[in-house]
C-alpha cells in the first residue's frame, strides 16, 4: 500500500489541466509552424505540412481561434498560481544560479516559479493581442472591412507579438526538457515528493500541511 502511494506522489495537474494544456500546446505548435510559413520565406517549406500554401493560410486563423478558447480557460484556472510574489523577485535576481543548476542557493517558491509565471503573463498578453490582430487581418472575412492603417498595424503587431510568443514558447519547451520531471508532471499529473520539495518547496509544504490536517481530522474522527 505504502509503496504504490509513494509512487503516485503529489497531484500537480489534474486530468482537465493536462488535457487542456496539451490541446493548447498542439494547436500552438501548429500555429507557430503555419504562421512562420507566412512570416518569412525561410519557413515557406512548412506550408507542406498543412496541405499547401493556400490551406496553410486558410487553416491558421481557425486554429488560432480554437486555441484561444482553450487558452482563456487555462488563463483563468492558472491565474492565482501565477501572481508574482516577493520570493519570485528574489528568484529572478538569482537567475544565474537557476541557469547554472545551483538550486541549493535559490529561495523556495510556490507551485510555479517566476520563470513559469513569466511565461504565463507573456502568453496572457500575447494570445489576446494575436487573436484581435489576427481577426483584423483575416481574409476573406474581416480584413476588407478594416481601415488601411488598422490593417497595417494589425499585420505589424501580429508579426511582432507572434515573435515574442514563439521565443517564449521555445524557452517554455526547453524548460520542460531541461528540468527533469516537469514534462512528466504535465503528462502523468503527479510528481514525487522529493521533486516537489526540491523545485517548489513552498507548494510542497502547503501540500504536506494539507495532508497532515486531513490525517489529523481523520484521526480525530477515528478516536471519537
Amino acid at each position, binding site marked *: 500500500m505504502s509503496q504504490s502511494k509513494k509512487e503516485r506522489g503529489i497531484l500537480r495537474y489534474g486530468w482537465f489541466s493536462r488535457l487542456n494544456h496539451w490541446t493548447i500546446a498542439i494547436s500552438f505548435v501548429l500555429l507557430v509552424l503555419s504562421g512562420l510559413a507566412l512570416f518569412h*520565406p525561410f519557413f*515557406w517549406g512548412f506550408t507542406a505540412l498543412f496541405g499547401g500554401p493556400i490551406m496553410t493560410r486558410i487553416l491558421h486563423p481557425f486554429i488560432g481561434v480554437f486555441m484561444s478558447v482553450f487558452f482563456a480557460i487555462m488563463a483563468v484556472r492558472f491565474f492565482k498560481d501565477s501572481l508574482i510574489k516577493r520570493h519570485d523577485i528574489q528568484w529572478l535576481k538569482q537567475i544565474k544560479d537557476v541557469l547554472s543548476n545551483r538550486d541549493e542557493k535559490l529561495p523556495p517558491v510556490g507551485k510555479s516559479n517566476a520563470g513559469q509565471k513569466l511565461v504565463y503573463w507573456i502568453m496572457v498578453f500575447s494570445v489576446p493581442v494575436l487573436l484581435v490582430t489576427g481577426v483584423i*487581418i483575416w*481574409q*476573406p472575412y474581416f480584413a*476588407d472591412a478594416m481601415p488601411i492603417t488598422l490593417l497595417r498595424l494589425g499585420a505589424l503587431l501580429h508579426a511582432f507579438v507572434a515573435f515574442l510568443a514563439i521565443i517564449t514558447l521555445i524557452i517554455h519547451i526547453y524548460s520542460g526538457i531541461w528540468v*527533469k520531471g516537469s514534462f512528466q508532471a504535465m503528462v502523468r499529473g503527479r510528481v*514525487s515528493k*522529493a*521533486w516537489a520539495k526540491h523545485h517548489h518547496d513552498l507548494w510542497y509544504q502547503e501540500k504536506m500541511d494539507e495532508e497532515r490536517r486531513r490525517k489529523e481530522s481523520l484521526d480525530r474522527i477515528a478516536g471519537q
Partner: protein
Amino acid sequence: MRGDQINLQNITARSATSPPSPQVRDGGVERVTKLIDVSRCIGCKACQVACSEWNDLRDDVGECVGVYDNPVDLSPNSWEVMRFNEYEDEQGNLEWLIRKDNCMHCAEPGCLEACPAPGAIVQYANGIVDFNSEHCIGCGYCVAGCPFDIPRISKKDSKAYKCTLCSDRVFHGLEPACVKSCPTGSIMFGTREDMHELAQSRTEYLHGRGFENAGIYDPEGVGGTHVIYVLQHADKPEIYNGLPNDPRISPLVDAWKGVTKPLASVAIGLAALTGFFHYATQGPKEVPKEEYDEVEDAETHEEDRT
C-alpha cells in the same frame, strides 16, 4: 516554376524571394510607361470597357449612386475606374477633373514587398508589376502594402487582382487595351523616356493655357511609377479623388516587412540553439539522489509511526 509565367527571363523582382532573379538580359529591355493626360480625358469610359473586354472581366451591374463613377470602386472584376471630381478653382470656375484610377506599377512596389508567397507578385524588366494567381494564397498582405489602395481580393477564388498593364499584350508588342481604345488620345503608351517627353510638352502647353501648376505625377517616394499622369493642378494631387501627394510604402509596412523579419527568424533559430548548448554545457536540472532518499526516509519513518 511551373511554366505559368509568360517570360521567365524578364522577371527582375519576385515576391518573398531573397536570391536575385535573372537579370542578364535586362540590357535590351526598355522600361515602358503609360501616360494618362487628365486634361484631355472626356470621361467616356471607353478604356474601362476595353479593359473588361481584353481581360475577359464582367463585373456585376451596380447601382447609380448619384455620380458618374461606375462602378464606384475598383473590384476583382474592375481593374480600372474613372473617378469624377467637381473642383472649383481659384477663379471660381468649375472644373471637371476625371482621373483614370488603376495600378500605378511602382518601381518599388509595396504589394511586392508585403507579399509572403514566393512568386505571387513579380516585376518584369520593362517595369510592369504583375500578380501571378497561380502562386497567390489570398492573404491580402498586398492590400496592406499598396500605397494606392489598388489590389482587391476576389470573394470567388480568394486571389488578388489588379491591372496588369496588359502585360500579355505588351509582351507581344501591343499597347494596353485602354490605350488602344481611347478616342481623345489621353492615354499614351511607350518607353519611359518618350512618355516623359510627351508629358513635358503637354505640361508646357497647359502652362500656356493658364494652368500654371500643371505638371507630371511620377512620385519619387515609390521610385517613380510606370503609369504617370499629366495633371492640371499637379501641386494638389489630392483633388483628383485623393491621389496621394507623396505616396510611399507606409512606415508600418516597412517596420513589418523590413529587416525585422530576417532578424527575428535568425533570433528564433538562435533561441533553439541556445537551449541545446545550455543543455550541453550545464546539464539537466535534476533532484539530487540524496534528496530522494531523505524525503523517502522521512516518509517511511512517518508511515512506521502510524
